[in-house]
């Protein structure tokens, strides 16, 4: 699979979280050149005033200052290291404790404070594309996880076919796989659905084809 590579950030929105505006002056002026608008988010009592659900991964990029006082400034659902939008860390104090907070926020790129204009396109490019890549990988992991849980259905379906229809396991597997591809669902999903139908039908005694099979041409 070829990951999409984003290189034109025109129309994006930068949400900047910092209490040190002078250190990020170059950020705003350079982002304008790249077609990116900037908004500064208010920080009150160590919390960011933001509705995470309103953020859009296609549009928004979050710049978070690692030197902010207080607890984790973002309240994301699920794993906070997998934020809903790309996060770029603004690094002042290079202490491991501060950097760790940016890692825990899921930052995929960094800009050193005071921000230098020549570093910004690189940070955007890396930050956004690493975010996209990581999302692709996460989706693939989720898919693998679903398939792993579906292994049991595959085994049961193969067993059902071999014992009831009288074909060997290779042939049973090939039939299930062919049919799942025809219906454009994963093998695991198909087997689960197949077993549901299999259980609901009256028990076959003869070597009959189960319901839903296409006639196989010999």
């Amino acid at each position, binding site marked *: 699979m*070829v990951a*999409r*590579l984003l290189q*034109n950030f025109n129309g994006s929105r930068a949400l900047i979280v910092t209490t040190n505006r002078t250190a990020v002056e170059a950020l705003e002026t350079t982002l*304008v050149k*790249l077609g990116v608008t900037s908004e500064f988010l208010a920080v009150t009592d160590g919390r960011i005033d933001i509705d995470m659900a309103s953020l859009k991964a296609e549009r928004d990029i979050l710049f978070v200052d690692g030197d902010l006082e207080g607890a984790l400034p973002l309240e994301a659902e699920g794993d906070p290291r997998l934020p809903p939008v790309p996060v770029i860390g603004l690094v002042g104090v290079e202490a491991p404790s501060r950097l760790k907070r940016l890692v825990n926020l899921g930052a995929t790129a960094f800009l050193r404070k005071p921000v230098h204009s020549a570093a910004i396109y690189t940070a955007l490019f890396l930050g956004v594309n690493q975010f996209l890549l990581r999302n692709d990988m996460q989706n693939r992991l989720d898919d693998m996880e679903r398939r792993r849980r579906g292994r049991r259905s595959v085994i049961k379906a193969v067993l059902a076919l071999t014992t009831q229809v009288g074909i060997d396991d290779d042939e049973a597997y090939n039939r299930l796989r062919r049919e799942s591809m025809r219906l454009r669902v994963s093998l695991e999903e198909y087997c689960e659905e197949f077993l549901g139908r299999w259980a609901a039908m009256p028990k076959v005694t003869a070597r009959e084809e189960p319901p839903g099979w296409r006639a196989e041409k010999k």
Partner: protein
Amino acid sequence: MLLAVVWLVAQTPNGISAGGRFLFWNGLMVTSRHRIGVMFSTTGSYSVVARSMLNGALLAFEEISRSFPDIGLEPIVVNPGGDLARYAEYSLQMTSSGIRHVIGCYTSSSRKEVIPCFEKYDALLWYPSHYEGFETSNNVIYTGASPNQHVLPLVRYMLAEIGSSAFCVGSNYIWAWENNRIFREAMIAQGGKVLGERYFAIGDTEFDQVIDTILSERPDFVFNNLIGESAYAFFRLFRSACRARGIDQATQIPIASCTLSEPELEEIGHDMVDGHLSSSVYFSSLRSPTNKAFTTAYERAFPNGPAVSADAEASYIAVQLLARSLSAAGTDEVSAVKNAVARQRLAAPQGEVWIDPQTFHAWLTPRIGRSNREARFDAIVEEAGPIQPDPYLVQSSPRYAVVSHTPNLRIAK
């Protein structure tokens, strides 16, 4: 003439010379004097264009001494000889000696080499050449064309008028890599295709193998990003190889470039100079009174050449804008001069030119020219007026990179 100007630009082998200018005082009050660095590789493999750039700058200095008698500009000319290390060395010497403005650089590799120095000492580099974009240093004024002013108009023209398949050759450095990337993505997005891409070290002149490949691939045209002597050798060898095979190169496999200028046509040689396409914001053949005055003054000042080029015009523009900005700002302090330059409008040889206040790149007028036997270009396509520079192509490229290879298909049982 109120001020008689004598140029005594000399150089010592290891640094900035005692060269400079004598001002013969004629009663007018010079309120400010500024030493201005001028840094071009007037020797080395791409010296032909660089010498025309130096000439363009010097012509502007000479004119400024008459039209802006209130500011005394003293050009300090250095020649890095095409050696990157010497670019850095000279920049450091100039900026640390208090020079705040330098007109210079032709190649992007040299510009990238010196920018850190200009940023460190808060000096301003006036970069007078077309380049590949994706840069906006706070310490550079870009008076040459951005990619949306050279390569993108070329792609549109070639697809509409010449054909949809191209073969790319280039010098092995950032200019050719990036310009070819922009070219390739724009071609593919509009239904064209790139049959091959080859790179050669700057100064290389061995092209037999790639020419064989090109002739067997038979593209509709060649996109050339070779610079200097490599480019001249390629133009000659390619036409000879075509002639030997009975191919009329200019009409059957034309070469299109974003760099090719008049003094370079003269280098290619007389029976091989015609029929080459160039995308540029300036051709010396432009018929306007301003350009006529410019080319006449240039030829009078530099009768031994090299001929005026687009980069010479960009250098001339850079010095003219610098002088006007210094005069308006009343200081050579960088931020004041930058504020002032964004307010200038210059009636340049190519037409009206001004600096975009957001990117500090120039609004310029794109044109496509075809070279003739006199080693000049006939403009065949021309924009109606100046086009906004778009160095990051935010207005003129797709959001996602265009992928040129076929998708990875897996064989499924």
